[in-house]
């Protein structure tokens, strides 16, 4: 463990909502809004109040490295070892810490990020690994858990927001299905807006043959009918769908949010021409407009053959996108309110196969994060000299999930009430990785 706390990423004083202002706003809209959820059983104790205050105006960008990127070609290289592969390592801005030569830009910014090198998630399946990492635990036979995006859409979303709570870019088709079950018992309101084919939601613009008046009247009619239906058949599901419809209507009036042409060309050029880069820019744009959770999937890292060439192609792109996003958020003063997490469903085997590939590996791999609530310049955990096992500070998917929640000001131990059953946000006994928290 090499935690090198340089400066905390986020402080209460940094936020533009004071406790007094927050309380007065919250009281005006009712206690449901104060709690942030209608179902969460947050006690109104000091800790919960502090966390609730902290999470105001915060967002998460998840860079989902689908298929499983190699920790050895990114954050935890093993140069000179039989497992190390051909890449050299480079020093970073943290003395004594080296990462792959494929990441020179992040190496320069290492003092601004945190890396976990000791993940043992014990699941080397694409679907089950994705389920685990996105939820912090496995679904049970009797219950599906909401994924990270749905939880943050609920916990960080603003009442009456006109922007979606959860946007997911997943342009490649491989592995997309592994990310589709999302909001579970939280309801459709917190399901993602999936942008698979482009960056603009389909059918967002009003049809030419429908006038503005017609459009408004249709919406009013739908609201009347919905209210009538809800008065007879009220349920969480009905309310959730109504809220989702209302949000769609809001989206139709925020067409420009999804239009990357609105960004200055100089900014677009900084991010670069690849789709992943442009979607990362869109994520920043959305966060800036108040979207609580954006997932940008970059598939597909599953390099069973020619691992080193695949990573030669994809890691420089990841390095550039992460560095540009970090700089952009920092320059806009958004780094203190935006958490960026880069992870996939697992890492890759230290053993190099005969196709010069690496296979699935969940026993000792890495993830990186920076921004809101996260320590600057911390490298947590350690693997052995060949990268086969974790030898220090082993953590699992639950700890990562809890850390992200805590960093965003969400109490991981708060609960949702599902029927008669209280469901904690993380499994009992799971704790956030405190050395990573600012």
């Amino acid at each position, binding site marked *: 463990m090499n935690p090198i706390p340089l400066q905390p990423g986020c402080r209460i004083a940094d936020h533009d909502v004071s406790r007094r202002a927050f309380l007065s706003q919250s009281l005006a809209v009712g206690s449901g809004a104060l709690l942030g959820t209608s179902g969460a059983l947050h006690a109104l104790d000091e800790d919960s109040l502090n966390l609730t205050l902290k999470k105001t105006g915060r967002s998460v960008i998840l860079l989902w490295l689908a298929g499983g990127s190699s920790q050895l070609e990114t954050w935890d290289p093993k140069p000179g070892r039989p497992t190390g592969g*051909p890449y050299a390592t480079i020093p970073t801005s943290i003395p004594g810490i080296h990462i792959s030569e494929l990441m020179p830009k992040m190496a320069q910014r290492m003092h601004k990020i945190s890396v976990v090198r000791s993940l043992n998630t014990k699941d080397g399946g694409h679907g089950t690994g994705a389920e685990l990492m996105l939820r912090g635990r496995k679904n049970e036979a009797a219950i599906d858990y909401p994924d990270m995006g749905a939880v943050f859409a609920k916990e960080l979303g603003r009442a009456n927001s006109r922007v979606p709570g959860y946007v997911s870019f997943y342009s*490649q088709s*491989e592995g997309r299905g592994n990310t589709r079950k999302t909001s579970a018992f939280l309801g459709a309101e917190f399901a993602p807006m999936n942008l698979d084919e482009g960056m603009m939601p389909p059918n967002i613009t009003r049809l030419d043959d429908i006038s503005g008046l017609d459009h408004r009247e249709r919406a009013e009619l739908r609201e009347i009918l919905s209210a009538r239906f809800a008065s007879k058949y009220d349920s969480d599901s009905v309310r959730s769908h109504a809220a989702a419809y209302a949000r769609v209507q809001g989206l139709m009036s925020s067409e420009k949010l999804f239009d990357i042409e609105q960004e200055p060309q100089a900014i677009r050029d900084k991010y670069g021409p690849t789709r992943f880069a442009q979607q990362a820019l869109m994520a920043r744009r959305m966060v800036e407009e108040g979207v609580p959770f954006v997932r940008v999937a970059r*598939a597909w890292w*599953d390099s069973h*053959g020619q691992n080193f060439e695949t990573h030669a192609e994809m890691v420089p*792109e990841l390095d550039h996108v992460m560095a540009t996003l970090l700089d952009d958020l920092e320059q806009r003063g958004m780094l203190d309110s935006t958490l960026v997490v880069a992870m996939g469903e697992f890492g890759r085997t230290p053993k190099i196969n*005969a*196709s010069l590939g690496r296979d699935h590996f969940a026993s000792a791999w890495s993830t990186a994060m920076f921004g809101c609530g996260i320590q600057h310049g911390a490298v947590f955990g350690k693997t052995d000299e060949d990268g086969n096992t974790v030898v220090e500070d082993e953590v699992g998917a639950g700890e990562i999930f809890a850390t992200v929640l805590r960093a965003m000001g969400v109490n991981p131990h708060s609960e949702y009430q599902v029927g008669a059953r209280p469901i904690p946000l993380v499994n009992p006994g799971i704790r956030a990785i405190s050395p990573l928290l600012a």
Partner: protein
Amino acid sequence: MSTLPNKIEETKKVSRQDMAFCLSRRPETEQVVFGSSDAQLYELNLAGEKPEAVAFEGEGHSSYITGLARSGKGNFLISGSYDRRLIWWNAGTRTRVREIKDAHAKWIRKVVASPDGTLIASVADDMVCRLWNAETGKLVRELKGHDLETPHHYPSMLFTCAFSPDGELLATADKTGHIVIWKVTDGSMVKALEAPTMYTWDPKARRHSIGGVRALAFSPDGSQLTAGGIGKIGNIDHLGGKARLRTFAWEKGETLAEMESDEVKGMVTRIHYHPEGKWLLALGGDHKGLAMIVDTTANKIVTETRTPANHAHDFVFNESADRIYVAGHNHVTVHDLRTA
């Protein structure tokens, strides 16, 4: 062996923990030198009952050694590595002579000697081919004609090169299937050819690429050029595409034949024509090794088979072209070519 062989029989295998990427044979002997994934050069006398690999001495490379060539007088072995360096070695004493630290800005993929052994060509992912004086190590010329990026804005790779038999021409080939033929004496571009089927870009499912032209060889009369690789691949997670060869009548810019294996999948990594030009042998693999023999008069694959050993990265003939010495994943092997 001038008759067309149809059988490749493994006669000796030296198992290794490392990967042997390139290999050079001392003429008229069973002695080979190979470059390893452990960044060492090893000498191996394959005439022995239990050949022992002897490492070269002195400070060497720091990454995979992927190219190895022998100078004309046989005094020097020149190695190239993913560490971007070229190192000249005394072939007799196995000691280091000189190093060119920044021979290239990115991974060196292949190092070959001109037929008379006076020039060394190196290609690397900086997309430059450099010609070096084989004796002095002086840079003679740079050949620049390959794009740095693929059409999809990712770094390209310059995998291979081959001299023509008269040494006047040099062909280079990259990831996208772009092949350039250069005049060695002045560095001018003589011809550009394309082998696009060897590059697989997956725009939909996985959004990255795989493949490229991995092997080149001129026919002994210099009129034809054969490129080897893999493609098209459905699932680019694996080397699951058909092994592929394309033969050009290069002066006309014509493709004479595109040959893909029906039997074996994987990537062709090395091609050698028989000295009389009647057939050629291509080796490579996915997890396992593959071999294809092509009747070059008919431009037809006549033998396609798995080899007992893993993926083969490089091979050389003996003088009579009835024996090959192979460097591969976890092995160095000897195979005899026979006609059943």
